[in-house]
């Protein structure tokens, strides 16, 4: 494998700072004296700059949350309100009911709080 063949697949990771130090040194040494790989490095940099420019433009052009359709905004607000109500209810329930339960049975003590297990699978899906 020539130095160019070894270096070329690692150029991106080198530019990203994701190479191990010994490999990074080898890439840098090669790029400093190889015009073709230096051009490839510049190509990577320019391509990255263009892509980042597109990303910034897209972000600037995305509708702000206040500009979304009324129905969707209401759905979002309703979900947030329901969530807040749920948390508030659970808090109130805990603070008022649990001490009473603890006092009802001197042997058992308060019931341990068990978090619900039947939601949130989506976030765990690989």
């Amino acid at each position, binding site marked *: 494998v020539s130095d160019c063949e070894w270096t070329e697949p690692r150029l991106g990771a080198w530019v990203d700072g994701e190479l191990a130090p010994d490999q990074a040194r080898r890439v840098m040494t090669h790029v400093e004296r190889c015009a073709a790989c230096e051009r490839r490095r510049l190509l990577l940099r320019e391509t*990255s700059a263009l*892509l980042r420019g597109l*990303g910034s433009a897209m*972000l600037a052009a995305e509708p702000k949350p206040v500009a979304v359709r009324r129905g969707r905004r209401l759905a979002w607000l309703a979900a*947030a309100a329901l969530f807040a109500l749920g948390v508030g209810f659970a808090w109130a329930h805990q603070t008022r009911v649990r001490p009473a339960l603890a006092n009802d049975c001197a042997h058992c003590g308060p019931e341990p709080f068990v978090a619900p297990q039947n939601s949130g699978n989506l976030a765990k899906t690989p």
Partner: protein
Amino acid sequence: VSDRGGALLDRIARGDAQALAELSTMYRARIQRFARAYAGIGPELADDIAQQVLLEVTRTAERFEGRSRLTTWLFGVAKNLCRTQLRRREDAMDPDARVWRSLPDPGQSPHELFEQGESRRAVREALEALPAPYRAVLVLREWEELSYDEIAEALGVPVGTVRSRLHAARALLAERLIQILGGRP
């Protein structure tokens, strides 16, 4: 990119409505952008996905264990939701079949070929031409500045796959950009 995820999610788990608004301000447009680029969908559908992601994270905020950044978690959820959209499209190419594609040695660089009015359209066109798994790693790296480890975690693939897909994605993107900006078919 700041990532004060743990504190924000703690507040959300306690029902702090202001924290929900902050989460939306910080991430909604970014997730929408990711969804557009990764799933190749329009802004409205992408915004629906962004809202679903935020609701999902809100619903499960109390389970966030802080082992990963909030950003990584959010984009992992977004990726799963986007895949439903992707399944409806033709994207059957094996993303790793072209992993070792080489960067072109450019006679002219994209910058030299660059013309202000055309560049954005060209970059968008070149990005859309990439296979979806390549688009995902590329935009998480270039737009979200996630590390390779974080991209791997968000997408559920090994770090080596992230590395090789990024290399191939950049090579294909550069090649396509040179073609488009140089006026070649």
